[in-house]
């Protein structure tokens, strides 16, 4: 199993003495659609930050057999690892097409860069169809609706040709229809890629997760299928148990602030 997919061993991230991630072991086999859940402060985003090189960490993170820890962010991205953020970050001044074209171009040579873009690269046209923004390709990304920006980000990961997608709360603040569209999009892009999703929305998780890891206080509490995780007593205690109360059922719009 350790030869392919994402393998995390004894990952630790410390901020000023606070252990945000405290010895995480995680195995995500290739092709999996894994959901990371857990209460606020469990270390989910920090885990993704460590995998993508944004924060320093100790331990080991391997993808497709290659060690990632210690490499700069852009080198890790070149190895086929892409991520999105809780607040969609697209290049607001550039058009949808320009956003995708930049995402597709990390391997371009200087001569290609110095020329003007003629036409639409095939991968970009394909991604425009997949994320359903073909009709908006010449609009500045800044005018897109919140959900459309998230889809554009996923589209950017597609043209970037990543093999591992790390998505940080992709449906936060989305309407019901947008959630469904996003879930279907995740299924489609997950067919030939490994996908890890951080999510608070339990309904969304139940519908689309293939497997689930529960994080709590910087450690993995439980790993398994949706049913296994939901049946676990400890998980119910720290997290799901509160699902009986109305609070977590409400979509975490407040998360955004």
């Amino acid at each position: 199993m350790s030869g392919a997919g994402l393998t995390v061993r004894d990952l630790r991230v410390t901020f000023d003495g606070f252990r945000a991630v405290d010895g995480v072991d995680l195995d995500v086999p290739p092709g999996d659609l894994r959901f990371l859940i857990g209460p606020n402060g469990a270390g989910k985003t920090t885990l993704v930050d460590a995998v993508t090189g944004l924060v320093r960490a100790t331990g080991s993170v391997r993808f497709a057999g290659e060690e990632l820890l210690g490499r700069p962010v852009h080198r890790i991205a070149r190895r086929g690892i892409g991520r999105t953020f809780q607040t969609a970050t697209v290049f607001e001044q550039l058009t949808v097409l320009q956003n995708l074209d930049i995402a597709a171009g990390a391997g371009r040579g200087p001569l290609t860069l110095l020329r003007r873009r003629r036409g639409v690269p095939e991968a970009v046209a394909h991604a425009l169809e997949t994320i359903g923004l073909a009709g908006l390709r010449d609009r500045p990304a800044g005018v897109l609706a919140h959900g459309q920006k998230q889809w554009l980000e996923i589209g950017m990961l597609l043209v970037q040709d990543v093999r591992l997608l790390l998505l940080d709360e992709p449906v936060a603040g989305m309407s019901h229809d947008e959630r469904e569209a996003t879930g279907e999009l995740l299924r489609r892009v997950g067919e030939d890629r490994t996908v890890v999703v951080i999510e608070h929305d339990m309904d969304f998780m139940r519908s689309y997760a293939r497997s689930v890891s529960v994080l709590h206080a910087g450690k993995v509490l439980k790993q398994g299928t949706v049913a296994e995780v939901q049946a676990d007593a400890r998980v119910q205690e720290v997290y799901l148990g509160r699902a009986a109360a109305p609070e977590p059922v409400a979509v975490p719009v407040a998360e955004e602030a």
Partner: protein
Amino acid sequence: MTTTAPPPAPTPAVATPPPSPSARFRVPGAFLLGAVLLFGVAPLVLSDFRISLLAKYLCYAIVAVGVSLAWGRGGLLVLGQGVFFGLGGYAMAMHLKLADAAAAGETLPDFMLLYGSGDALPWWWRPFANPVFALAATVLLPMAVAALLGYFVFRRRVRGAYFAILSQALAAALSIWLVGQQTTTGGTNGLTDIRGFFGYDLSDPVNQRTVYFVVAGVLLLLMAAARQLFVSRYGELLVAVRDAEERVRFLGYDPAAVKLVAYVVAAGTAGLAGALFVPAVGIISPALIGIVPSIGFVIGAAVGGRASLVGAVLGAVAVAWAQSSLSDAFPAAWTYLQGLLFVVAVGFLPGGLASVVTALRARRTRTAPAPAPTKGETA
């Protein structure tokens, strides 16, 4: 760029819709208009004195081309362009002083005879006797300094106000160092009394006009080159780095390399402007490259519109013209006015006057029957 992988051949699957006829001819038309104004109208209607003043303003406009790239598109507030302007200017002036001395039968430039301690030319002056070396140095020396500096600064992720302050400090340091080197650089006076320019007598008005034409030609060529950079994929990437540097990193690019290219090109542009300034004005001195002139280099771009090439260039010419006219009438007030202009432009009109033009044009096209797709670009 630090790419080693072969670029994936982009196959155009869908053709971009052709731009509307007016848009297609707008850019070549603007260049043609600029050429007619600079090469046809200006020499006809302006006196020799005014032409040489215009040549000086156009040198500032050349600096503004680089400022527009680095600051307008790259978000790098280059407040120390005086350093690169000075390196280019001094490289050119050193050669011209040596040529003047040789023409007069001397081995040392006049100021060295006056203040010099020894009778030998300093070793670092010697290569500048070679015209090819000196001309190459006017551009390559500033670019090399910018590359070295930028490499460390961008790698350390120094940005924003810290980058601007660092640039300022460098401009101050160079001008202070030059003042202290009376015997080898002319000190406060700088390098003055430049008479010849590659065999031509600069006091002859005809040759002054030729210098003006060279400056105007270089400006137009650099604007064309800068425009190509603006509309290229690199230009799009540069804007992306300006607006969301971290996001670009996660796409597999090194933003430091992207910014470095813009910074080095802007430095080379400023160096070339400094080199042309010397024959156009006949002097280069520490007072022309220190903190105040370095701020002056970006004010024109700020007022005209830093992200717009034409805006930055026209702004630079207008501010330089205002400075010459007003600083004669109110010498004390100009510095305050300059500061006020900068604050107002950056604080209240970040897009400069060019953004006003764009807004007006957008209003007009909105009322037109068939609105053309706006490309979000002003060049």
